[in-house]
């Protein structure tokens, strides 16, 4: 199944914890059954991190990114390391 930009807002809201429980479950069921959708979820997630690192998120999105997306220790650790790496690339 092909996926397009129309699904990006829904996926972004999922990643930022803005969906209701029912919407979350429905979307999760979808990506468990659809490998292409899962791949697109990862793409949107990568874009989200990139936009955060570049200061491109709106205020609400940034707040939810920091409050919800980064509540996972693993994600926080990775973003910190990516940030450090980007900083060293800029300096180096």
């Amino acid at each position, binding site marked *: 199944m092909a*996926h*397009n*930009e129309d699904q990006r807002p829904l996926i972004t809201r*999922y*990643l930022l*914890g803005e969906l209701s429980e029912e919407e979350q*479950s429905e979307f*999760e*069921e979808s*990506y*468990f*059954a659809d*490998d*292409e959708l*899962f*791949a*697109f*979820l*990862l*793409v949107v*997630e*990568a*874009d989200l*991190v*990139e936009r955060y*690192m*570049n200061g*491109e998120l709106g205020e609400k999105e940034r707040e939810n990114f920091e409050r*919800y997306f980064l*509540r*996972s*220790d*693993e*994600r926080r*650790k*990775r*973003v910190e*390391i*990516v940030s450090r*790496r*980007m900083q060293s*690339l800029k300096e180096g």
Partner: protein
Amino acid sequence: MTKSKRTEIFLTQTNRRTVIRKASVRAVDGSDEVCSTTTTTTVIEEERSLSFQSVIVELLPRPLRQPGAPAPCAVSGCRSVGRRKSVAWEMTEDAFRTLLARLDADWDRAGEKYALLRRKLAKFFECRGCHTPAELADETINRVARRLVEGEEILAFEPERYFYGVARNVLREYQESSAKQLFSLDDLSPAEHPRHDPIEARARAELRGQYERQLEQLETCLEQLPPAHRDLLLEYYRGEQRGRIEGRRELAARLGITVNALKIRVFRLRDALARRLNDLLAQQGRV
């Protein structure tokens, strides 16, 4: 490199944790020489998605428990879980084979489906705010495998839905267990308050050194990519902000594909790069 004549899938569990497993698809030629190995372990995290630089990060080894330490359940911290709490169950090779057979009759495809399923499970738990997504993914897989061994029927046409259902149960137990374990810092005595731990600090410093070494290995892997793939990746990540977005549009136009298709293509390249890096790390681990 010769194409495989037979393929083996096997399971390895270390004595450190019950949840650590390796599902390897080994392509073997007639002389039993290993041609290629794909390994999925808890070491390999699911985050193929953060950014190009984070490819290295996703391959970082997870901190393992000390050898000999008990293997707690990922959900409740004890060795038993939920309604099956009387007996600690560990994945066996037979159970794992049964699980793979249920995913696909072809071993290669079953291995791929298993790896993808595990990534989906870990992503699900991560998106739900769990602190140990990989372990909870393994816990889910263990439960399904156990049910299969015990004769429970999984609808063959939609095993993913079944896994998702089990994952939701694991999540619920995790959340209930986490809620029970919450306590206020004010309730702790001064001696119990969090403090700087020199042993932990040293471990973190070692981990940082490891990151740096693995970055070098990533660069090695990049060099080994076909030039067209390497150039595509580098061009994709060139520039910053608006310039980068514009660059991607131009790149997609040059390739005659949509930006979305370009992103998926790059995602797959990164995935291949991550596997290559994993192989390199595994080789070095054997030396």
